[in-house]
């Protein structure tokens, strides 16, 4: 079963061009309920107070990195089950494995295609349902 089109999604990336691209791609897939943050540091309070259903985040950000944001989310009692998709340029094997071990639900490396984004989102929410 696909994800709820009305689900509230937080997009986190320090490059505004990338946030715009992801926002537009999500809109194309039918997800119009999106918000943005430019760093893990600004994202975390938004997540804590905002009732988000899905987090899409970059890794390499100046204040708080995506991996630290992921760890903070998993460590927070209210956020621990939040589905997290990483969209990042980091392609080192040990990092990918580390992210998976920290509980990331999906990992996309840049540059990526719209089809990949759709596939990963569907897969994440399929797994959650099953």
């Amino acid at each position, binding site marked *: 079963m696909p994800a709820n089109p009305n689900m509230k999604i937080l997009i986190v*990336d320090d*490059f505004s*061009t*990338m946030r*715009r*691209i992801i926002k*537009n791609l999500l809109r*194309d897939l039918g997800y119009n309920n999106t918000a943005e943050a430019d760093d893990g540091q600004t994202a975390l309070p938004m997540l804590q107070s905002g009732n988000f259903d899905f987090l899409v985040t970059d*890794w*390499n950000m100046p204040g708080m*990195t995506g991996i630290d944001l992921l760890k903070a989310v998993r460590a927070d009692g209210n956020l621990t089950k939040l589905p997290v998709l990483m969209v990042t*340029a*980091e*392609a*080192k*094997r*040990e*990092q*990918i*494995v580390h992210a*998976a071990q920290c509980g990331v639900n999906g*990992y*996309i*490396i*840049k*540059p*990526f*295609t*719209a089809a*990949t984004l759709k596939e990963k989102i569907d897969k994440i929410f399929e797994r959650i349902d099953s």
Partner: protein
Amino acid sequence: MCDSDSHKEMLSIAKQLVAELEAGNNDQATSLVDELAHIREGELFQEIGKLTRELHSSITSFEIDSELCDITESDIPDAKERLNYVITMTNQSANRTLTAVENAIPYCDALHDKSVQLGAEWKRFVNREMNADEFRKVSKTLEGYLAESEEQLDAVKGALNEILMAQEFQDLTSQIINRVIKMVEDVESHLVNMIKATGSAPVAAKEEEKGKLEGPQVPGLSKSETVNGQDEVDDLLSSLGF
């Protein structure tokens, strides 16, 4: 022989020298002067020896300075590779955008022209300047137009999405360029250190930061610890049960 020892010895010899001179023993006095000179030479040789050792160890440490090796053997060639890749990426993006624009414009033109044409016909209809036959024709044309415009607008939308995606380069090229800037700054500070360090203690090697982020992958520079494309990411994760 340390300073205070040689000082004591010089003092005792000097006292002997004064005694010999006062006694008129010129030969003994001369040999005592030689002894004093000898002590001075010894100190001088020691000083030279110390400087030589320091210089030698500075030179050696430059040779084995791993950071210097890294800079000349891999960082600078890497930097050139990275910047060339930036050129390639920006070039590709520009071309991709232009192609999308060139594809979209004919559609827009055609739709525009047809709209104008149909608009004129419709006006005639509204002004009751049209007979039944003509109207049937216009009706058919209108039908065709609506179907076509659906298709063509999809194509235009496709082109616009293509342009959107073509902007993704900017994020990656900025990251790559920032890395080159950082490398240049490192070389700069290393050179400054080398200049300062001539004659003083060797430069300490920098410790490799654990978990340092790699940034975007550049073709031809990828190491075995990185993956090449989304498929490899998926394979890696599924092979580990994620």
